[in-house]
């Protein structure tokens, strides 16, 4: 059942939230030993929340638009009193003293959080192999990665453990795992969803967004969590665009630009590009005005991102010092600096160390202008090129990832090879624009392929409209 069908049935009293939650917990308990989508299943918490939803229905109160729908939450989203690990040893034992704004919005909409999902440590990675708790496996082929960093959330949806999940996306961390697991994943416009309670990685890029089995479910979930929040000063004021508003409107007359530079980017595999062309032709057949468009600076996003995101991370992760929460490692007789070093050395995995050092280097005297400063200027060029493209197009189209799900362990030895996964997803983060990955056919290996729809800032309504139609046209 889709999330929409579950909510409708619970609201109508045709089924109970308790029964829905029980069914999903059972499925997750049975199947997650192999998949490892979850860091923790919250059975008691979920059962209590389900009882509250069922009581609201029984008492004639509105249980909310997502009544009784189980949601899997990425483990970098704070849940009061419930461990939030970021899949890192450094947050060992930490129980946040507050809920993220999205967690409150989920509760207000009647949704039931059933577990916290595995991820690359602090959301740094594209395969969920950088987790201190071991990798997640792709439910479509358990010898393959689910993508990352929201790999646990994508796998939970693909395996049917939860109809909905939340992830976070700093350079593609919702969209790439969605593509590799054959589900839908969207990164909203920067500032559309509150980041209050999302553990910070790169603050000018991070956004929370939905993963779901279909576009309409993703739209309903996004609409439940978006909108202004006084607790996040970077959250946009004013009414949020409605993602679910025009899902059935078709694509007649919509102008769709296929981004040439991303389709031809380094490392794109032929089957992925051929699915993209096929999606573009299908849209044209459905009445869209499809053409190629050039966004020349887009491919340089990768280089800019891998300076900007580590720079911001090196600052954000300075807070993990063994003083206020999480892990502390002390050596007898050591001073506070030695405690910091011992704690951070034991608490962070290699990818986090790599990025913290890369960011520290890019920001240090003598290198700042050449690296961080240059990257910020490239960011401006990418925004300019997108703005120019959106003068002629309503949405843009590209692959989501360069290939299908790759075998576990095949890219861990060479960080740069792993980073190249993000070439198509990064430009939207740098620009602050929304983008969504929709499953569209399969690769030569029989694994799912995703097509990405990009839109200008606050263009969620048209983006979901086109995505919903691509889903209808998919083979």
């Amino acid at each position, binding site marked *: 059942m889709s999330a929409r069908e579950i909510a409708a049935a619970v609201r109508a009293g045709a089924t109970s939230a308790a029964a829905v939650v029980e069914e999903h917990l059972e499925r997750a308990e049975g199947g997650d030993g192999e998949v490892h989508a979850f860091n923790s299943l919250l059975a008691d918490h979920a059962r209590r929340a389900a009882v509250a939803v069922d009581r609201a229905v029984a008492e004639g109160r509105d249980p909310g638009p997502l009544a009784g729908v189980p949601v899997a939450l990425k483990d970098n989203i704070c849940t009061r009193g419930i461990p939030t690990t970021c899949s890192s040893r450094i947050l060992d034992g930490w129980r946040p003293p*507050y809920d993220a704004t999205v967690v409150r919005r989920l509760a207000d909409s009647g949704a039931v959080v059933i577990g916290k999902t595995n991820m690359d440590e602090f959301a740094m990675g594209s395969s969920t192999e950088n987790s201190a708790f071991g990798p997640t496996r792709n439910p479509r082929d358990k010898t393959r990665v689910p993508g990352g960093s929201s790999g646990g959330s994508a796998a939970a949806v693909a395996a049917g453990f939860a109809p909905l999940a939340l992830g976070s996306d700093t350079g593609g961390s919702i969209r790439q795992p969605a593509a590799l697991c054959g589900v839908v994943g969207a990164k909203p416009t920067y500032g559309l969803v509150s980041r209050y309670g999302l553990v910070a990685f790169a603050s000018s890029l991070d956004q929370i967004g939905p993963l779901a089995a279909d576009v309409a479910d993703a739209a309903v979930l996004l609409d439940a969590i978006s909108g202004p929040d006084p607790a996040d000063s970077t959250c946009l004021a004013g009414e949020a665009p409605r993602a679910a508003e025009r899902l059935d409107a078709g694509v007649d007359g919509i102008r769709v630009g296929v981004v040439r530079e991303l389709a031809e980017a380094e490392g794109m595999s032929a089957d992925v590009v051929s699915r993209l062309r096929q999606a573009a032709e299908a849209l044209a057949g459905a009445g869209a005005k499809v053409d190629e468009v050039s966004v020349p600076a887009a491919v340089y996003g990768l280089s800019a991102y891998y300076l900007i995101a580590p720079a911001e991370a090196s600052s954000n992760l300075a807070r993990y010092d063994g003083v206020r929460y999480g892990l502390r490692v002390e050596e007898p007789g050591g001073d506070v*600096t030695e405690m910091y070093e011992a704690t951070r050395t034991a608490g962070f995995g290699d990818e986090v160390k790599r990025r913290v*050092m890369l960011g520290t280097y890019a920001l240090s005297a*003598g290198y700042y202008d050449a690296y961080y400063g240059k990257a910020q200027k*490239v960011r401006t060029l990418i*925004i300019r090129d997108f703005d120019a493209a959106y003068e002629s197009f309503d949405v843009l189209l590209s692959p989501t990832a360069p290939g299908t799900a790759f075998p576990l362990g095949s890219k861990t030895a060479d960080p740069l090879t792993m980073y190249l996964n993000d070439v198509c997803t990064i430009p939207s983060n740098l620009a602050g624009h929304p983008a969504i990955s929709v499953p569209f056919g399969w690769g030569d290996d029989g694994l799912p392929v995703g097509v990405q729809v990009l839109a200008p800032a606050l263009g969620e309504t048209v983006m979901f409209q086109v995505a919903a139609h691509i889903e209808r046209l998919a083979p």
Partner: protein
Amino acid sequence: MPSRITPEDVKHVARLARLRLGPEEVQTFTAQLAAVLDHARDVEALDTAGVEPTAHPLPLVNVLRDDVPRRGSDRDEVLAEAPEVEDHRFRVPRILGEAP
């Protein structure tokens, strides 16, 4: 563009970031960071003369809220998460050079 990152540079940034690296780690990280920084050189192809840098995607300045008192976090709940606490304060190892 600056010269290639050296093992000395890696040791320096590790110290700044409060990370300890063994000799083998210094070699591995130096090679990996050099590969990423080499790839980043592709942006040299772009002319950025006169281009303003973008630090943030939103043009936000001084976002203010009404100055209304409200409950903050509970002190005991926050301190309960600390590795070590004394008299309602975070306790840390000695911070000055002298013996404890």
